[in-house]
């Protein structure tokens, strides 16, 4: 596969370059060492310190200046990251070990929030909903995304229109989607139930039914989110070199064999990437819940992030909410690292 060869060639070149660079650095430091040694020997012999402005001093000054220059470029971004990401994250961790309603003084309670969480049936059901949602949703979005991308990756009339039409929902904000969905899936007055009535099918509860609500939300989320995986797959498909496919055709591969043995392996890195991306975003699904069901009916659509929001901002249990947030962070990290490890072991260059 030419694509693969190209990558490994590049890697080899890169690796070689890196090795050469290290060699150079070693050489430099050797030179520096040899250069400084006579000076030191000289200083020892004369019993005096080397004169200021000597080679050693200049080297140090040059290094300091280089460091300062570097940091003057890196410092603003570093400060922003420290101030807006790492500091709040660290603070949230401290809060997660407190009982704090935001107004009265906080009380240190160690790991009690985490212990409480392990026994909280509401938290467990939020985890169940989220995990179930992820397990069901991510494969669907991968398969459907790939299917649509292949369907859209051909030269037919109005192809630009189809692609745009598919992309539009991605641009719509989650809040607008939620409000729209409320109209469509309203139990009494919604479009969906009107359609069922015309078809003489029984009326459904949709967002008001505990057993249907997660499916309906998955459907709405799929509508907004599918375009992302389609776009990524489309880009990957157009990246497959035509001579590969040509070679396969000349070798007598039929359409299915071309797909199975050429296209599918080429899409593997993208699949891992989209899989990780979708998993992370689905684990954090929130806005759609907020704008449609508020976690209802009877908590049936409560996800982890909605649970965190409700605890922290509706009930002012900032400590408990932070603890749940940290648990989600830990779980997401483990899943992501797991997928990374899997990708590396099976030699898929996803990132």
């Amino acid at each position, binding site marked *: 596969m030419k694509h693969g060869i190209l990558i490994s060639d590049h890697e080899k070149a890169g690796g070689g370059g890196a090795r050469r660079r290290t060699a150079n650095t070693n050489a430099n430091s050797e030179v520096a060492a040899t250069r400084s040694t006579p000076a030191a020997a000289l200083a020892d012999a004369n019993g005096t310190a080397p004169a200021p402005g000597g080679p050693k001093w200049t080297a140090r000054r040059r290094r300091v200046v280089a460091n300062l220059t570097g940091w003057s470029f890196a410092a603003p971004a570093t400060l922003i990251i420290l101030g807006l990401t790492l500091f709040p994250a660290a603070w949230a961790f401290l809060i997660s070990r407190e009982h704090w*309603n935001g107004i009265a003084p906080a009380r240190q309670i160690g790991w009690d929030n985490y212990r409480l969480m392990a026994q909280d049936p509401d938290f467990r059901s939020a985890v169940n909903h989220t995990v179930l949602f992820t397990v069901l949703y991510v494969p669907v979005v991968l398969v459907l995304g790939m299917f649509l991308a292949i369907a859209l990756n051909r030269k037919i009339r109005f192809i630009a229109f189809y692609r745009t039409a598919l992309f539009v929902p991605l641009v719509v904000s989650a809040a607008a989607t939620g409000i729209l969905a409320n109209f469509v899936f309203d139990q009494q007055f919604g479009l969906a139930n009107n359609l069922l009535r015309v078809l003489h099918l029984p009326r459904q509860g949709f967002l*008001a039914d505990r057993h249907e609500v997660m499916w309906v939300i998955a459907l709405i989320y799929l509508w907004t989110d599918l375009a992302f995986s389609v776009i990524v797959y489309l880009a990957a498909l157009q990246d497959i070199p035509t001579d590969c496919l040509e070679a396969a055709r000349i070798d007598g591969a039929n359409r299915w064999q071309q797909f199975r043995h050429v296209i599918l392996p080429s899409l593997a890195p993208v699949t891992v990437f989209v899989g990780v991306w979708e998993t992370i975003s689905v684990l954090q699904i929130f806005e759609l819940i907020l704008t449609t069901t508020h976690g209802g*009916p009877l908590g049936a659509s409560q996800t982890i992030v909605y649970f965190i929001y409700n605890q922290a901002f509706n009930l*002012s249990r900032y400590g408990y909410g932070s603890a749940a947030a940290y648990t989600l962070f830990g779980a997401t990290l483990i899943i992501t690292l797991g997928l990374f490890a899997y990708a590396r072991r099976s030699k898929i260059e996803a990132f």
Partner: protein
Amino acid sequence: MHPRTARTLRSAAATATAAALMLTAACSSSSSSSAKAADPNKAVTITVWTGQDVAPEKLLEGLAKQFHDAHPNVTVDISPGAPTTDQLLPKLTAAFTSGTYPDISYNFGSWATQMQVSGRTLDITDKVKDPSVQWAEFPPAARQTATPNGHVIGFPAVVDNLALMYNKKLFQAAGLAEPTNTWTWDDFRAAAKKLTDPAKNVYGTAYSVSGTEDTTWHFWPLLWQKGGSVLNSGNTKAAFDSDAGVAALTFLRQMAVDDKSVYLSQDDQKYADLFKSGLIGMIMSGPWQLSDNVAANLDYGVTYLPSFDGTNHQTISGPDIWTLYDHHDSDRAYWSYQFAQWLTSQQTDPKFNLATGNLPLRSSEASSTEFQDYAKQYPGAQTLFDNLKNATTARPTVPGYVGLSQAVGQAIAKVLQGQGDPKAALQDAAKAADVALAQAD
């Protein structure tokens, strides 16, 4: 502030409003929170967070400007503070942490105790005893809410109560007699059943099953009428899972599950919209619904809540308050108090509350021309005003009420949607509520 600007302002103040200042200074001779006496002539800026929507916010900004015109040395920095009133709580929380909290903030009544316990509020208990404040003119529930743990922390801002609103056209179409102030809940149930017409998507009544405070507070009047109470006498444990609570919830369950005459609203807005659109016969609602009804040209009527025993028409009031915050600055404290008192006075309040369609804060406003206009503009306003006397029990403001409210709201939502029985659901909720009360959140 730059000293020179301050001096200029001060001299302007002295010439322009000497009389007004002397008057207000005389009204508040009692000591402020700081040891240092306030200097009413000093230039001061006070910050006010209103948590209001666009239209009422405009009115308040206009009033703040009037106050500034009368006291040029006082600048009132007034803003909503947060996009919705709900959002003021997290905003205040953050502001307490960073020390940038306002001098005056609009608060839901349920936050009052939390605010008082934070130690950041002014204590104006002695000041409101001044006869010129006419503290007793505020409805009792509003006064209780502004006085958590026996300390007055602010002035009532908005008072309301729940009454029964009904759609006259639907009653006529069903050939039913309209509700009266002497109705019983059995009358209510029978009418709701007759009004319900699934084919036309018409429901007799509605109840929110969102599980929020909206679900919960509509339930308290029924509990109280049955003789129950939300908390025990020491305010330490939940008491709503009593026989009274079970009976009240059973009544609602019969309507929702057996009669199917209740539209179960998954959020707190939809049932009001459907009532406005003429698809729901009766709802328990308050003054905030009036302007919507009028705007939708709805032919509606208002009565007291029905009673179980034929005499007790007890309702609930959810008063909101203007809380005053302590910045250890006697001048700011002085002017915060002056502004809040002025805003809620008999002269000023009609320009805010009546103009926005709320009930008047003070009983003395009933004779004002503004109130006459208001009652004419909004049918039923007079009934709602009279209904304040039925709000004899205040909604608890203990810390932990928010958690209690959510536990009860979810229990009610569960039962009305046909899951679980009233007794078990309320007992579970009481357990959760006890934890919330013990942890004060």
